[in-house]
């Protein structure tokens, strides 16, 4: 029985190179004051606009998760708790603030004081607080770009107009702060790059419809997400996702379905426990279970259902991206629909709901979600709890028991279905 899933290829090397290059740029900014940098939230970001200033994004979430995955998150979390953060505050925030105050960075390089702290609030209330705190502790200016939450299935005309007006205010603000003039053509080109990357990423997501899937749309998707956030609006991003698509397409062609490598196909909801990433992944690998889709991989953008940036209406399309094309600004029932579509169209056996203590945006109400999937739709659903950043909230034995019990039941169900089929034939 397989206990670990592992593959290293060109895309992994390229991913590493790109991320290292990004941190080098940030280090350069810290040392020389150039290029300008903007702190942003991953979900619903407007990185295309930054291209118009040749500015580089800082993503506090990426810093936080890098610390967690390298087992370095506890020290900054404890420091933040000494400052007054509560045990029940989002641990991403605590790790980020604690690391800033202690001068810890994921690579050991320097992180700059941001030119602007841009709170592109999309559904995450915690972000409003987090970025106020970043502004307070770093002394950098703050602009809160308020993105109306998706009360309905579609954004209203007023929603789009409101976001576009703020994007234009933001340009003015960045012009004042950087002394640079906004380069509209470069912005438009960035929007075009994004639409290409989105197209490639969407095609990659759809490859998971194959059985066996050439990649895990939860655990492996995370490798692809770094470049997605940092390089979406750049030619390097297009190039990276071309490599990724090609490699995964080849995998589909070259791999025969022996029925062994992929015994179960699941959809995973919620962020992963980064401090115990490998241990958690192996709990699924043990059962040859593959995530064929995940909501977490749509934090940066939800494109597998056709939405794209559009260079012919760059401002409006950035606004639409912020409003409706990322999972965190979409309402809870839209998320139910998203998962339901994954189960149906990606042909999944069940749903795994991973409740993370830190993130109420993801987790508040997941009991109702479980009720919907098990009782209303009759889909085998597992509900487990831990945290995305705080290593203290991870009960390995309990998680393992629950995951084992879930797959045992699924296996039993599959075997008895097969038995019935065979008797019928």
């Amino acid at each position, binding site marked *: 029985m397989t206990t670990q899933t592992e593959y290293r290829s060109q895309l992994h090397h390229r991913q590493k190179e790109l991320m290292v290059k990004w941190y080098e740029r940030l280090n350069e900014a810290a040392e020389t004051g150039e290029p300008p940098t903007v702190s942003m939230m991953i979900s619903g970001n407007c990185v295309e606009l930054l291209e118009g200033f040749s500015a580089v994004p800082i993503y506090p979430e990426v810093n936080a998760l890098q610390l967690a995955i390298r087992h370095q998150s506890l020290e900054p979390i404890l420091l933040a708790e000494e400052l007054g953060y509560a045990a*029940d505050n989002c641990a991403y925030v605590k790790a980020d603030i604690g690391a800033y105050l202690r001068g810890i960075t994921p690579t050991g390089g320097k992180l700059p004081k941001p030119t602007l702290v841009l709170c592109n609030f999309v559904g995450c209330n915690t972000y409003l*607080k987090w970025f106020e705190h970043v502004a307070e502790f770093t002394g950098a200016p703050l602009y*809160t770009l*308020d993105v*109306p*939450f998706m*009360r309905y299935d579609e954004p209203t005309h007023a929603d789009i107009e409101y976001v576009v007006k*703020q994007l234009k205010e933001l340009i003015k603000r960045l012009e004042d702060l950087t002394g640079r003039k906004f380069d509209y053509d470069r912005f438009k080109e960035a929007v075009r790059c994004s639409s290409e990357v989105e197209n490639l990423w969407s095609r990659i997501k759809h490859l998971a419809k194959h059985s066996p899937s050439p990649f895990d749309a939860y655990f492996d998707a995370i490798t692809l997400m770094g470049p997605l956030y940092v390089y979406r609006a750049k030619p390097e991003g297009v190039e990276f996702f071309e490599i990724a698509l090609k490699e995964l397409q080849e995998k589909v062609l070259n791999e025969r379905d022996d029925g062994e490598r992929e015994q179960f196909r699941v959809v995973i909801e919620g962020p992963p426990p980064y401090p115990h990433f490998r241990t958690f992944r192996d709990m699924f690998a043990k059962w040859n279970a593959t995530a064929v889709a995940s909501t977490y991989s749509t934090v940066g953008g939800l494109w597998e259902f056709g939405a794209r940036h559009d260079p012919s209406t760059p401002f409006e399309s950035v606004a639409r991206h912020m409003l409706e094309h990322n999972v965190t600004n979409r309402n*809870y029932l839209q998320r139910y629909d998203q998962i339901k579509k994954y189960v149906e169209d990606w042909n999944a056996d069940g749903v795994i709901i991973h409740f993370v203590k830190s993130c109420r945006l993801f987790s508040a109400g997941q009991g109702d979600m479980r009720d*919907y999937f098990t009782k209303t739709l009759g889909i085998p659903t597992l509900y487990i709890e831990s945290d995305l950043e705080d290593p203290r909230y991870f009960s390995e034995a309990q998680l393992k028991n629950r995951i084992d019990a879930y797959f045992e039941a699924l296996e039993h169900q599959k075997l008895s279905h097969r038995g019935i089929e065979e008797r019928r034939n």
Partner: protein
Amino acid sequence: MEKLTERQNSNESSLSSSVPSVVSPSCEDVIPDLNFTTVRKWKDQHPGAKAIGYFPVYAPLEIIHACGMLPVGLNGAGDQLDIQYADARFGSFICSIVKTTLEMGMTKHLTPFDGLLFSTICDSARNLAFVFKRNFPEQYVDFLHLPHNPSSEASVDFLMSEYARLQENLEQLGGTKLTDAALNESIELYNENRRLTRRLYDERDGNPQLMRTSELYALIRAGNFLPVEEHTKLLKQAVDELPTRAGKQRDSIRVVIEGSFCEQPPVDLIKIMEEAGCYIVDDDFVLGPRWFTKDVSVNGNPMRALADAYSNASVYSSMPHDWRNPRHKQLIEKARRRKADAVILLIAKFCEPAYFDYVLFKQELEKEGIPHLLMEFEEKMFTFERLRTEIETFVESLLFD
């Protein structure tokens, strides 16, 4: 310092419990009434009229009122309801009010309401709105996005469109059209109500020995359940009654309470704080109905006036985000204005916005040398011994310093 002296018993009469009213029993009785008797009575008296329950905090009561409806502030269920269903829906690490509100829905306590209104207060409450939508598909459930960027000129226009959307939905629900005249009239009524509330707050600040916060709290919180016209009468009677009161000063510290803008602490906890020697000279209890620092204009477009008041004249709390005047600065201003000896940060368990704000509040209070105490509560708690000890120790440390 002198020993603590007890308040004269002759002056213990409640501010409002003796006041007769068409619909209201005493204010303290209204608060825990999960049958919403006052709402049911109002509906009996106004056949066909609708009642809208709103989750804290900032709801545009004037718009609901001007549509001929009764806005009712939902404040959880206190310790009146055992949670049977909501825990399974909302799991661990979620505050009480989110769970008790859902529990009230699932146990049919919210049947007097024809609609439920939520807004952008926090992630849990927002998800709650959509869980309500799924579990009560027949119910009108609406969600308002209240803007977080008041520094943008576009935010007032956006909020107007949001209010207009609510208006349209309410008109459809109630079958009557809202007019500017009716809205201006409603704004006047709420302005008067808020003016009286501010007056009572100022009176308490000036003479805390004349008015207990537990009384004032019950009086203000009853406003969540009563028609504004009725509630304003009660406030007026309370203001009129004040000069007839006499009370002896006692050795107490002057305290500002911060952090209870959404889930409400049990009344008994407020009483304990007072017994322990706190003159509460300002607080953010039941923030909702008194959310503006000044009158909303009635000259001009009333929707614009309401939207502008939210963006530019809101009483600060953990919910609106206005970096032009950060709330940790405003807390210090408030404490100075009220000549407070200390600030008590009274936070509902699992209230993430309040937890976050605590960090900057604490930092700023320490910078300014203002003593502070953090206390956590849950609306459903009914034993207070640990908190009593904490508060007594804190008060004594300041009184006998």
